[in-house]
């Protein structure tokens, strides 16, 4: 009896707090988990905004990146999307096609727009309208192990793929369990690891509205990787290694060169502080290139507090203070001009290797069903890495299936 009474009282109290909470406007913000710092950064923004607007309650939810897309999908399907969501910008096309993303041009003032570095706005602009705002940007570069280079008698990091092959041969000669070039062969971003080669060989992901993975540049790019495997210049059987696996090899000092993003700098500090490494540009083929990736904040068409949500973005999330805080703590590249001019960034020579590559950055093309197209590409790559199919045959197959995916 007592228990029941207690429960009833509890339920009543709960109902009361819910009712009183509803009197305040609530903004739900769902963000992806970058690092242990993410939660604190966004909670800090919420606190700042709450202080300026006592009648508004900003709720932050941090979700693992692997689950984020599915989580948003279920929320939207259930008719209960958050007010603001952090997304991988390549997902935006699907949101726009299904009429779920709120166009932001009506909110954006010329002053607001001028805060951003222009080129980062391009990926979230679809059919001439801006649907999301970049928060995190990364470009990819080549990390190289300076000690292995010195031991192999190599002075400078390779500037092009021919030099990379020569250097990898010299590093391979250092020992049986030392590899020249790390090649990622499975799981998330396996396709991206090959796009560097595709772009530097003159290829493109989409050419005239069709898949470009079967183009001559793409085939040359994959042939290069296949040659590296055949000559034993990569770790054996790359399809057994995901991104963490090859990054671990690099941290252990067992691989000479690896292509990856700025986050590895932070990890090196924690996991392999003694390792002497440098950062250089991605080796050039017929041209220079890198992969530029942005994550963005978006609003939803069905949102009930879009005005307030916009205020949160304008006054807090994209204020100089929080931009610098976010980018330094999470280890990304500046997306607004204030960040780029901040001494933390101008004085960091390692970061320069990444920012120097930005003019050559290619972004994921705005195509629907991106993940499915990426998987079709990965399938072709794995067929080649396991030596089952020749590069041109595998890639032409992939191009055909991607063309079908694009038409859906």
């Amino acid at each position, binding site marked *: 009896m007592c228990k029941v009474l207690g429960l009833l009282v509890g339920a009543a109290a709960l109902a009361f707090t819910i009712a009183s909470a509803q009197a305040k406007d609530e903004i739900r913000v769902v963000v992806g988990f970058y690092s242990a710092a993410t939660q604190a950064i966004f909670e800090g923004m919420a606190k700042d905004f709450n202080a300026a607007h006592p009648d508004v309650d900003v709720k932050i939810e941090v979700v693992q990146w692997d689950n984020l897309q*599915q989580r948003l*999908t*279920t929320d*939207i*399907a259930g008719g209960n999307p958050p007010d603001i969501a952090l997304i991988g910008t390549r997902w935006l096309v*699907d949101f726009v096609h*299904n009429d*779920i993303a709120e166009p932001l041009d009506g909110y954006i003032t010329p002053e607001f727009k001028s805060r951003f570095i222009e080129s980062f706005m391009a990926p979230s602009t679809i059919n001439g309208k801006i649907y999301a705002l970049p928060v995190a940007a990364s470009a990819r570069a080549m990390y190289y192990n300076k000690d292995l280079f010195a031991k192999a008698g190599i002075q400078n990091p390779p500037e092009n793929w021919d030099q990379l092959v020569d250097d990898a041969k010299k590093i391979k000669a250092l020992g049986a369990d030392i590899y020249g070039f790390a090649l990622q*062969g*499975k*799981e998330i971003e396996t396709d991206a690891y090959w796009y560097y080669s595709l772009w530097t060989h003159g290829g493109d992901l989409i050419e005239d509205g069709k898949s470009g993975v079967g183009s001559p540049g793409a085939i040359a790019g994959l042939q290069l990787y296949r040659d590296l495997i055949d000559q034993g210049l990569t*770790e*054996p*059987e*790359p*399809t*057994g*290694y995901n991104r963490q*696996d090859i990054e*671990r*090899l690099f941290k252990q000092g067992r691989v000479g060169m690896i292509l990856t993003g700025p986050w590895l700098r932070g990890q090196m500090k924690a996991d392999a502080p003694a390792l002497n490494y440098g950062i250089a540009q991605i080796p050039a083929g017929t041209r220079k290139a890198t992969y530029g990736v942005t994550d963005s904040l978006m609003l939803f068409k069905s949102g009930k507090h879009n005005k307030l949500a916009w205020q949160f973005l304008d006054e807090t999330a994209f204020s100089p203070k929080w931009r610098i805080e976010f980018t330094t703590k999470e280890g990304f590249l500046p997306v607004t001009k204030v960040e780029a001019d901040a001494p933390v960034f101008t004085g960091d020579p390692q970061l320069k290797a990444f920012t120097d590559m930005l003019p050559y950055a290619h972004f994921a093309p705005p195509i629907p*069903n991106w*993940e*499915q197209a990426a*998987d079709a590409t*990965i*399938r*072709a790559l*794995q*067929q080649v*890495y*396991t030596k*089952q199919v020749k590069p041109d045959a595998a890639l032409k197959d992939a191009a055909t299936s991607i063309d079908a995916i694009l038409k859906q």
Partner: protein
Amino acid sequence: MGSSRVDPIRGRRREAGQLVAPYILILPSLLLAFWIIGYPIWDLTDMSLHSVTRFGQLKEFSGLANFSHLIAEPLFLECLIRTLVWTFAVVGGTVLLSIPIALILADDFVGRRVLRVIIMLPWAVSLTMSGIVWRWALNGQSGMLNATLYDFGLMKQPITWLATADTAFPIEIAIGILVSIPFSVTVFLGGLSSLPREIFEAARIDGASGWQRWRFLTFPLIRPFINIVLVLNFIYVFNSFPLIWVMTQGDPANSTDILVTWLYKLAFRYGKLDIASALSIVMFLILLAFTVVYAVLAMRNEREAG
């Protein structure tokens, strides 16, 4: 006898009442079961006959178009064949290994209890956890398996076990067998303990050899339990997602994908909820057909044997 004779009409009425009463009593649970099982099937069928956006919104009715898309997909047949290989290999291996293990554990010997616990242990660990542990153990650079083989001088170069289907898929089947054994052994142990002792003593007195006792007594008597293990394992293994997903995600180049891992990719990675629903229905029908056919065959065998 005379005093116990009942009025034929009242008796029949009581019989009728006795016939109906059990059905009335189980009616609520029957309805609940229909609701719990029936609603998802109805919902899936509905989705499989419409075109559905990645956000779950039902669009126009599309008839059987999703099914024809599914069948036109080359991966469908590829995954179906691999699913059958996977299922028959795991279930067959499990039954072949579980029966001798159960026979040994049914005997009386010192340490039997400890051994029983050890055999059951993999059951206590979730499939996902087992998958993660095996993934570490099979890692090409830092895995336990390579280190052990290397220490025993059985290996010169590290092998990346999960890098190709040639090694990855047989390993996944072996681990599938390992984690299915506890359940099967439990069922067989229950079956063995229910067998009457007298007939075995009689057989021994009559001079039946160990093999003869197994072939003509134990095997026919635990046949119903074998049937249960086969059907239940077939259903579990056919739909088993975590092991393969954690260890290889169907990689490389879909060469370890079975229907259920491909289904997950279709639904949650590619947002093709309509085709994924069609695939779910097809998988449900395959399992239903298998179970019905097997049940009929088993029953006919039993009747012939009886």
